[in-house]
């Protein structure tokens, strides 16, 4: 009888230890995936930030006109931002950023609409940004930081973007939101 109890106790202890070790291992794996996803989202966001910042600083560079179009949707997202700048040959070139709806994902009952950011030069595709943006907004600011709709009084351009990285099973999905923003001061807006 004693032997039977000993065996039962040892099986219980071994099972508990095994369960804890397996659960810890699974949790560690999930944590590693989450870290990788966060790093990927951040890298992609900062890559987009790099070219967007240098591009917007050239608004009106070498051209008589500066900002041509700035259009928003009902969610205050910038769907089109077009501006003039000089191309490599010294001719005026119209650069446009276009925000297009792609797909929507549902996480914990919340529907998140995703957008793709396209960039065109003279109407031809020329680069672009993430296709998993949940928010993209370019705002013109006057010198005192207040928003303005008038290009003549605009001195600063404020950009706000949120890049979303969904991961996990469709039934148990999580997402990492990477926020980014900058305010640039294109020299051409001051003249």
């Amino acid at each position, binding site marked *: 009888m004693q032997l039977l109890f000993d065996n039962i106790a040892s099986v219980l202890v071994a099972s508990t230890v095994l369960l804890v070790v397996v659960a810890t291992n699974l949790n560690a794996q999930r944590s590693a995936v989450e870290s990788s996803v966060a790093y990927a989202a951040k890298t992609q966001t900062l890559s987009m930030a790099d070219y967007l910042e240098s591009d917007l600083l050239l608004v009106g560079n070498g051209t008589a006109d500066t900002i041509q179009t700035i259009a928003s949707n009902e969610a205050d997202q910038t769907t089109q931002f077009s501006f003039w700048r000089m191309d490599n040959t010294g001719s005026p070139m119209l650069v446009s950023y276009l925000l297009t709806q792609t797909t929507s994902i549902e996480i914990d009952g919340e529907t998140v609409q995703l957008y793709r950011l396209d960039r065109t030069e003279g109407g031809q595709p020329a680069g672009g940004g993430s296709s998993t943006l949940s928010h993209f907004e370019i705002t013109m600011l006057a010198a005192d930081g207040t928003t303005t709709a008038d290009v003549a009084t605009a001195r600063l351009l404020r950009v*706000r973007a949120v890049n979303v990285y969904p991961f996990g099973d469709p039934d148990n999905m999580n997402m990492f939101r990477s926020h980014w923003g900058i305010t640039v001061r294109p020299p051409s807006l001051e003249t």
Partner: protein
Amino acid sequence: MPQTLLAFLAMMIAALSAINQYTAQLQSYEAAYRSEFELMANAVVLEEIEIIDLTTSYGGLESLNGSELKRSFEIGADGIEFDLTVTVTFVDEFGTPSATETTQKELSIAATHPRFATPLVTHTRVIAQ
């Protein structure tokens, strides 16, 4: 009994391993969380520096020294508010703070958030006379 002690030891090791992994995971979350706040604070501080540079004359910069502002990083209708502290000091040609009046001032803005004990970002700009 030796086997009882060994079983206890095995359970202790498993429990410690689980706690260790859980702590590392929390630290990883905290680092990612702070990194997001730093990027948002960065945007808010750089914007404030541009606005001050555009709206304040060289002579008027000193009046901003020590001022505290609240500025938000807004995404649509949501926003996260940061506390900004402005510091203005005279600096020499090497950027070293100077006790005497020079021909350039260093505008420095630090952003903090109640969630974090230390400043998230600090940016400076030297403005010449």
